């Protein structure tokens, strides 16, 4: 990790540690912690990290931004910092200036489409849009009748929002656009399509899941070294040790897959099959790790980890929820499998060993 990445990541870590301590916010039923946290993140320029200074952002590199997302995962952050970063990044692709305040991206699933009408307005329905309910603006990717993509900034107040919650209790909403006139709209760069947006979102979620698993491992190890049963610490039981070793394995796999994908995307000069493999493999493997690792973390904690009072659910349920955003692991596995089949058996190893 370059030194500048460390500074950005450390800034994010410090803000999260000061203003989003899991124990504290878990007891704050009114969500009063959210406003000061968002203000501090905004003051540090983190939500618009991926937006250049002339477009209203702080001009951080992709790698620096990814390190913020890892930290956000480690703290299971429940304000739309990842979503606003993605939205700013999307708008920046078309050099549209980002406004202040919370944003999110539309659509957030590879199956949903927003269309550009002949009069330049936007129509369509997007399900499972994270934090749509609290966003002031949406960064929208839409295609016209010719299949050409445009990027638009849309006032959230002009859209219909049917509120929902994801497994972690965070907003996951249905956004309906009915001939909505965007604040700004520009053509997407050549070659930029919905897959690109979904994969960028997928890498973000992979990093967040990996971060949450790191924390689940840490708090599970700590708990096992404190909890006494049968007159000894449960960490001394081999069965518990082996469960935690498996959790470490899942956490390690998620971390390796997610950081490798982030590195690949950050350094990609073109969006080829190798980068596609990195991004979708991370989403698939991190989603699998969220299931396997999370269940072990809960097993180690016993009943206390199943309570609202305990912080474990903040990580375990969000990691599970993040699997669904920007294409689930099942969706991407089918897409990857089809790509592998089209390339043919003898081109599988060269792809896997390409870097």
């Amino acid at each position: 990790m370059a030194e500048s990445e460390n500074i950005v990541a450390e800034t994010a870590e410090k803000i999260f540690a000061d203003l989003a301590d899991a124990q504290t916010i878990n007891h704050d039923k009114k969500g009063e912690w959210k406003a000061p946290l968002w203000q501090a993140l905004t003051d540090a320029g983190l939500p618009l990290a991926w937006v250049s200074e002339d477009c209203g952002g702080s001009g951080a590199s992709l790698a620096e931004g990814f390190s913020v997302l890892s930290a956000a995962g480690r703290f299971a952050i429940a304000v739309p910092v990842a979503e606003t970063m993605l939205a700013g990044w999307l708008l920046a692709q078309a050099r549209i200036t980002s406004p202040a305040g919370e944003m999110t991206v539309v659509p957030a699933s590879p199956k949903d489409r927003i269309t550009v009408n002949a009069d330049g307005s936007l129509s369509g329905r997007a399900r499972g849009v994270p934090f749509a309910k609290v966003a002031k603006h949406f960064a929208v990717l839409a295609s016209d009748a010719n299949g050409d993509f445009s990027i638009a900034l849309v006032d959230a107040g002009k859209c219909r929002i049917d509120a929902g919650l994801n497994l972690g209790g965070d907003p996951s909403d249905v956004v309906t656009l009915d001939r909505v006139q965007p604040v700004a709209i520009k053509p997407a760069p050549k070659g930029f399509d919905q897959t690109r947006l979904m994969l960028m979102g997928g890498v973000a979620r992979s990093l967040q899941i990996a971060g949450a698993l790191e924390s689940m491992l840490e708090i599970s190890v700590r708990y096992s070294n404190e909890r006494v049963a049968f007159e000894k610490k449960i960490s001394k039981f081999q069965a518990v040790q082996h469960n935690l070793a498996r959790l470490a394995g899942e956490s390690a796999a998620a971390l390796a897959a997610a950081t490798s994908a982030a590195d690949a995307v950050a350094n990609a000069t073109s969006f080829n099959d190798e980068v596609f493999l990195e991004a979708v493999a991370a989403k698939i493997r991190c989603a699998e790790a969220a299931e396997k690792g999370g269940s072990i973390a809960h097993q180690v904690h016993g009943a206390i980890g199943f309570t609202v009072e305990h912080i474990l659910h903040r990580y375990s349920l969000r990691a599970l929820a993040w699997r669904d955003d920007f294409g689930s692991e099942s969706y991407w596995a089918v897409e990857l499998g089809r790509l592998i089949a089209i390339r043919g058996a003898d081109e599988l190893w060269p792809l896997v060993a390409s870097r």
Partner: protein
Amino acid sequence: MTAALRFDPIRLPPVCEALRKEVRAFLAEEIAAGTFDPHKPNREDTDVPEFSRKVGARGWLGMTWPKKYGGHERSFLERYVVTEEMRVANAPTRRFFVADRQSGPVLLKYAPEHIKMEILPRICKGELCFAIGMSEPNSGSDLFAAKTRATKTDGGYLINGTKIWTSSAHIADYMIAIFRTSPPTKENRRHGLTQFLVKMKQPGIQVNPIGQITGQYEFNEVVFTDHFIPDDHVLGEIDGAWKQATSELAYERSGPERFLETYYVLTELVRAVGNNPDTRSAEGIGRLVAQVHTMRRMSVSVAGMLQAGKEPVVEASIVKDIGTIWEQQLPHRVRELAAFVEETATNRETLEKQLDFAIKTAPKLTIQGGTTEVLRGIIARGLGLR
């Protein structure tokens, strides 16, 4: 606070890609010449001495060792590329693999200079096969329970006892083994074992093959009866083998051989399914490819950290733990996905034969070179649980 796990996103340097092309071209030539069949798994009882010598002549053995011992002073990442290409091609590496990965580095560290000068260049030429003498009839994972005795005699030691599950002992020129030179002490049950270089095919050594469930005779019982080993064949500290046994393990645990052992069935499944898979096959293949990609990223990361002088002991153990379980489950997952492959798939017979062999091979993968249970103990220690 748990020590954080690290998996830096290591990329192979350009020199590795040039090397990879060379290795692939060489393997293609050897396949064309009929030296080995890439569709047949790397059958461990297949001993191809001339292949071993050709690999040595290419400079691909002892790649990281000093030139004065016949080595090539290249990086661990370059060795990594050679290893993974050979493994994926099902090349017959049995004769040289142990010597190159494990035995050579032990000799480099602990053998007297004249032994190094005599043996290491021959490993680099692909002339020597090594075995590892660790397990005994009542001492497997519990390495320090070994009882085979080395009794001091004039100018050396007399060896009496039995090693077991010793891979390649029937073709090996040398074995690196641990023998008991003193009883364990009350304070340290690991005390009293010494590492030795054993010259095979000598009086006092009897090798008895043991049949495996795969139908192979690849491991052996090795019985020592008053076998003489000269003093200069002691490797390292007398009674102190326990201090030496752990240092090379990071290399041994995290290489491509720890998740690619049954990889060939995945390639053949993709061939059998064809270019227009149904949703079920596509998803199954996609998941398996995502998993193998992740394993490889982890393994390359550990190789890169080792090259950089770090000691990722826990990370390396994790690679072997989840890598061997993955390669063990792979043939079963492929079998499930192949259940609906068209009867007319041209490679159906090849795939079925490969699956038979891979499914029979699978149980050993989480046992050899450190069981899953032992590895999880090491990981647990690294996590601060023991």
